[in-house]
């Protein structure tokens, strides 16, 4: 339980915590405030955003007739649905750094809910595209999810927390392929005609989105110690300048590499969410709800695959540290590319479904593995790096749909094969990521005995250090020593828990 407003008495938490009051364990079935409650609020609200963003694809066979859409219109709307979040995710990262994940995510979700309501009254390809475009902005809530988890959970479990929250949110992309055809069928049964039923069906994701945002605002807390605003006013949390956060984020090359590689695991996932229902419906002549069920199984794999990726990241980090995390990421994502190529080549329904499920597991695990690395790239600009990586995911989705899945140039099967090749190529840059204190895929840590403190404190100038703005980064550096892996960890001398350096 938390003791309110007394700085002298350390607050008590239901879960064991580290020096930053971040939980060191992850208990899935607990809703204890603030850690696990934040987890459940963030994944549910993110899930709602995914449901809304991908509510249209399973109903496209009806919508395309009602709005007289061509294949190009559908492709453009698909691209629009994931392009809004490119910049929204970067902006969201900065917003989280400045205002806290609770307000940032709830604001975004409530401001994009109107787009979902307005999808119900779309009457042309243009209005449909605009509705999907603005709805897609809500996917930026991914960044607040990851930021929130990185603020609530400590290094040993941050990969798992990020993976489960991200994965269960992404689940929405699969669940919606089941939910929307079901809701549609229900409304059809009540007596509406097809062209009205799909419109009414859209109110369900819209309402869900609105209610989840309310829950976040009412029950959520930014940090274990409280909300940003109150902590900022009482001086417990320092306010940082946008320009500094921005500079330290974009000047870190690792952020850019992860943005690219994330485009080819998460971006691919978004692309498949957009095209797979129509692919099965048209290629294998299935009924709408059958195609929806198969399409759903792609996104539903997220229930275990992305969290699995996060847990794998944490598990290899225990033994091999950051180097293990990077290797695991590269291997899993490359295999995802291989299975994507195979998916484009198989011709029977059974084989397609089987390959698609294996493909989904690898691609989603790669997403989880990526966010096992992201929390360590920067401490000062954690939000921005999360945003850049997340935004990069959407850029990947935009590019892939633009090149391979727009109009009638390539059949969907051919597009998938090419997409697989692109995944393999764009995953290679992981080899270039290098941390001086931990090493990279092919090189060990720098022989100049670089430390975690050196790396994280290099983001602060000496004037800022004098003002004590860097203390949070110092705590984090200490807690991140585990990323050296078991062999190295036993060789380093134990460091004092209290930060002793005040220049």
């Amino acid at each position, binding site marked *: 339980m938390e003791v309110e407003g007394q700085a002298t008495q350390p607050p008590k938490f239901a879960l064991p915590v580290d020096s930053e009051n971040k939980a060191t364990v992850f208990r899935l079935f607990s809703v204890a405030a603030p850690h696990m409650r934040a987890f459940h609020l963030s994944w549910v609200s993110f899930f709602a955003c995914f449901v809304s963003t991908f509510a249209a694809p399973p109903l496209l066979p009806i919508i395309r007739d*009602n709005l007289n859409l061509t*294949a190009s219109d559908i492709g453009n709307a698909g691209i629009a649905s994931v392009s809004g979040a490119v910049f929204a995710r970067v902006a969201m990262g900065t917003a989280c750094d400045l205002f806290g994940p609770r307000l940032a995510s709830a604001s975004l979700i*409530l401001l994009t809910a*109107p787009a979902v309501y307005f999808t119900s009254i779309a009457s042309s390809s243009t209005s449909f595209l605009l509705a999907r475009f603005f709805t897609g902005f809500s996917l930026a809530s991914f960044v607040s999810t990851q930021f929130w988890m990185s603020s609530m959970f400590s290094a040993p479990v941050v990969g798992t927390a990020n993976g489960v929250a991200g994965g269960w949110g992404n689940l929405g992309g699969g669940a919606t392929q089941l939910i929307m055809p079901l809701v549609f069928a229900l409304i059809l049964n009540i007596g509406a*005609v097809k062209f*009205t039923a799909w*419109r009414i069906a859209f109110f369900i994701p819209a309402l869900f989105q609105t209610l989840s*945002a309310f829950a976040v605002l009412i029950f959520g807390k930014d940090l274990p110690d409280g909300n940003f605003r109150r902590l900022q006013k009482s001086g417990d949390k320092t306010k940082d300048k946008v320009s500094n956060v921005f500079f330290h984020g974009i000047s870190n090359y690792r952020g850019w590499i992860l943005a690219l590689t994330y485009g080819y695991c998460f971006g691919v996932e978004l692309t498949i969410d957009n095209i797979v229902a129509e692919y099965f419906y048209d290629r294998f002549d299935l009924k709408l709800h059958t195609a929806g069920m198969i399409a759903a199984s792609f996104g539903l794999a997220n229930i275990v695959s992305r969290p699995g990726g996060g847990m794998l990241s944490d598990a290899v980090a225990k033994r091999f540290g950051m180097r293990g995390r990077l290797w695991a990421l590269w291997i899993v994502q490359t295999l995802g590319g291989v299975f994507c190529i195979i998916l484009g080549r198989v011709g029977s329904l059974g084989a397609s479904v089987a390959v698609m499920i294996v493909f989904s597991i690898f691609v989603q695990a790669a997403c989880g593995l990526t966010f096992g690395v992201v929390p360590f790239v920067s401490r000062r600009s954690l939000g921005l790096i999360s945003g850049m990586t997340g935004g990069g995911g959407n850029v990947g989705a935009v590019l892939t749909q633009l090149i391979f899945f727009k*109009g009638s140039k390539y059949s969907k099967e051919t597009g998938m094969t090419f997409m697989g090749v692109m995944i393999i190529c764009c995953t290679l840059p992981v080899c270039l990521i290098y941390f001086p204190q931990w090493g990279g895929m092919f090189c060990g840590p720098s022989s100049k005995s670089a430390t975690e403190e050196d790396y994280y404190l290099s983001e602060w100038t000496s004037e800022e250090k004098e003002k004590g703005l860097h203390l949070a980064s110092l705590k984090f550096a200490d807690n991140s020593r585990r990323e050296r892996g078991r062999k190295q960890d036993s060789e380093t001398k134990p460091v004092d828990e209290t930060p002793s350096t005040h220049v």
Partner: protein
Amino acid sequence: MAARDLLLASLVLSCSLLPCYGVVLFSSLQRTLVVTASPAPGQVLKGGVDKITVTWGLNQTLPAGTDSAYKTVKVKLCYAPVSQADRGWRKTQDNMKKDKTCPYKIVARPYNSANKTSQSVEWTVQRDVPTATYFVRVYAFNADENEVAYGQTTDAHKTTTLLQVEAISGRHKTMDVCSICFSAFSVLSLAGFFYIEKRKGKRSQ
């Protein structure tokens, strides 16, 4: 010799079995029926409201007995090429099982061989027929339920005498009002929350 005879026999047998396995090609069908539809050129039919009358009959210039195999007819509404452009899900394929040109059934009836010249049906354009350009085609089926002949309102290139349908939008005023109200509620409640947060922040100081 015996082997060659066996091969020939099996080929003949498999060819005669082919129609039974349903691989009917559109290009193999003969255009023996004459079909007309009531709408005037340029008339736009409203979904759920307007009616069309389709009349079909055997082409009288053909020799007698051409229609001896016809048992049933199906009258269908088909997409014209202009409505198939850039829409792979409406593609015309020669294999009748895979062909997606004619998705809407107007009526299925036994073929009336007594009244060869004109059989007709009056049909209200259904509410789930999308906005597009169409023509009407009538397929004649034999006793094995395979297509054997057809007729259509348009020419071979499917460019003349086409029908325009304007579908219902599916929107209702109630829906419009609900959308707007709920959207406004979402945005206003956010503003409300911010206001409450600000008040709380001021109070804790």
